[in-house]
């Protein structure tokens, strides 16, 4: 039943993270173990319910796409448009009238820009009439804005999809992109995830008890996007293959009547098993694991227990929770895990013929795992 899947290849990527903008900066920050945590900036006292966060105050969209036409773009959209551009550049993917219909975008998010949505709703309450909203802000309040604007700025006319996946957004984007590419519906997909830091998200996390004022992992933000193609396409186009995305499995495992997490543990373990099987990889091929870990001990235990059950060598593996450095980036978290994974293979090419895992768990019972192989043939 568990048929092997055709691998997808990563031919370029871009990242805007609290520890570095761009692939090289992120990779060296990771090697140094640099911390993205800093005092909250851009907000007056009391506007944010905690004093530290992993913000990216130095990000300026004008450095990426110039000044013209950027005034009404919200932060989620700015981050995405800029990162899509970086991934295209990194992969040396030239968008032309001939190929633009064959390049798509698959963006993982929570609800798009919750700031745009919240501010728009607020405008319907605070003015003399409920409809006295700024029409220029209306498209920003729709969840597919960032992916669509990325298409507009970079002229990408292929499939354009937005996935509301929260903590699962990264894996779901990989799955959606994978199926679409394997079916040949497009040739290239820019897939990834985005999250913006704003007062709405900060208070939501505060109320949901996800981030205490001085929690181990502060709230973060950012975006990472990956250029994905079939191996044949990459070869045809003469692209550098950075890594192969192999199996990617997700599922929902939660009993509705109690708080036991056993079902989620066994669910994640079965996703890991299946993803490895479908990758044609064995447990002993796994050389590293990139964890979701989001400062909730319950979710962290689920992840650790499932991995422990699945991989006999788990305790001795290279393990990294990139959230320790970039913060809890929620719907960008999976994309940051994959970024850390790609950086790992870049730094340690001797592991490139082995595989690394990334895992995700969510409070709603969702779990998932992706298997990625480095490319031993690729030499920087």
């Amino acid at each position: 039943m568990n048929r092997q899947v055709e691998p997808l290849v990563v031919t370029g990527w871009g990242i805007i993270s609290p520890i570095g903008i761009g692939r090289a900066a992120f990779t060296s920050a990771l090697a140094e173990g640099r911390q993205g945590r800093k005092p909250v900036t851009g907000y007056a006292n009391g506007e944010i319910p905690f004093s530290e966060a992993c913000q990216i105050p130095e990000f300026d969209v004008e450095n990426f796409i110039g000044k013209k036409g950027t005034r009404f773009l919200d932060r989620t959209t700015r981050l995405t448009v800029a990162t899509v551009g970086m991934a295209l550049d990194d992969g040396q993917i030239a968008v032309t009238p001939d190929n633009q219909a064959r390049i798509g975008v698959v963006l993982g998010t929570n609800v798009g820009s919750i700031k745009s949505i919240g501010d728009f709703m607020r405008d319907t309450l605070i003015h003399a009439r409920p409809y006295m909203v700024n029409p220029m802000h209306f498209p920003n309040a729709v969840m597919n804005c960032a992916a669509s604007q990325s298409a507009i700025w970079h002229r990408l006319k292929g499939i354009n999809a937005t996935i509301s996946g929260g903590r699962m957004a990264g894996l779901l984007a990989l799955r959606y992109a994978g199926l679409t590419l394997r079916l040949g519906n497009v040739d290239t997909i820019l897939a990834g995830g985005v999250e913006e830091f704003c007062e709405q998200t900060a208070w939501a996390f505060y109320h949901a008890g996800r981030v205490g004022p001085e929690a181990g992992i502060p709230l973060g933000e950012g975006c990472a996007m990956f250029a994905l193609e079939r191996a044949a396409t990459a070869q045809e186009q003469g692209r550098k293959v950075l890594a192969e995305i192999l199996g990617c499995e997700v599922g929902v495992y939660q009993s509705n009547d109690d708080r036991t997490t056993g079902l989620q543990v066994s669910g994640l373990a079965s996703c890991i098993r299946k993803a490895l099987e479908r990758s044609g990889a064995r447990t002993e091929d796994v050389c590293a694991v990139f964890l979701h870990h989001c400062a909730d001990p319950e979710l962290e235990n689920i992840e650790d227990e499932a991995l422990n059950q699945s991989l006999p060598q788990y305790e001795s593996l290279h393990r990294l929770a990139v959230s320790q450095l970039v913060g809890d980036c929620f719907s960008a978290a999976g994309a940051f895990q994959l970024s850390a994974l790609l950086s790992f293979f870049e730094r340690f090419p001797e592991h490139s013929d082995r595989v690394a895992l990334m895992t995700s768990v969510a409070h709603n019972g969702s779990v998932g795992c992706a298997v990625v192989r480095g490319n031993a043939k690729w030499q920087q």
Partner: protein
Amino acid sequence: MPVGTIEMSYQRVVITGLGAVTSVGLGAASFCDALRKGTSGISEIEGFDTTGFHITRAGEVKGFDPDRWIRELNPSALGRSSQFAVAAARMAIEDAAIDPEVLSHSECGVTIGTTEGESQLEFRLVQQWVSDGPASLDASLVTQTPADRLSVSVAREFYLHGEAMTLSTACAAGNYAIGHAYDLIKTGETDFMLCGGVDSLSRSALAGFYRVGAIAPEICQPFDANRQGILTGEGAGLLFLESLASAERRGTRIYAEILGYGTNCDAQHMTAPDPSSIAGCMRLAHSNAGISALDIDYICAHGTGTPLNDAVEAEAIREVFGNQPPPTSAIKSMIGHTMGAASALGSIACALALHRGFMPPTINIQTPDPKCGLDCVPNEARTAELSIVQNDGFAFGGNNAITIFGRR
């Protein structure tokens, strides 16, 4: 099997269950009945305070009782959109006459499209914020708000362990969700899928569309010469899909086969649709479905009722179909613009049209717009044996998705 090949023996995919939560009726049978009668679901908005709005009518689902449909989850811990989604899923499963236990032991997944997710919960949080400050927010609402809840709630209600995905590609999202579910079954990833779209009536959508002059004062009249805009709406449409082999094995009723779909992106403008890109999407859908434009017997239009949308859609249709396009009607004339549910309910209308042999009407037609040049099936449903039909879905951001269905 060698690495690097996708199995070429694709499954055929059929629709065997339908679930509809609409302003004109609950369940496939009453929705079908309303489509045949040309019933209007437009009424005065009761779900939120309309003070200050000049237009207070919408396609609102009245008297919806979540307790009737939601059994495993706590209905009061779900937003209205999730409630709609779970209810429509239960209807679709019951309609397909499949044991949920079987689904729970399969890889059955859920894909749901939406424009605004749990917009009513978001709005309540914003109200709390504005009146009492952000420290006063209701924490239980905060955790109910993420849009992934729409698909995950369906998975949890029926103990489904497959992929749960919420696609938030605005007003084409229902077709995106159906397309993705189709792909999963076609490639043998799973045998069963629940898929469709949902949205609940949104005060901010009313404000936004009114502000840009896109709301009609009383009635929605797509393709009429005097059309004045959309009316907002709400609801859910969920389809139960399985492989043809599975449906035949079960000996169950098949509404229709999904022949394929196409998606593309205008990449031009956030709100102004591009006719040539939409025509391109139609051609893509036809090609993926292995048919030609000549094979299409009926088009279930995106047909919002704004002067611009309908003109652009008609132009794209004429570009692809020539001067004798197939009859093209807009069910938004009856139920309003149900946003993320719209193209899912359009798909259900197509499945019913194929199965029961009729074309749903465009109601409220006084003078068909000669500039559109379409037979919009004015005011009365038409009996017709249909073989292949097309369902259009277009969205903000130029996200286009078109599904093609065939009679079985």
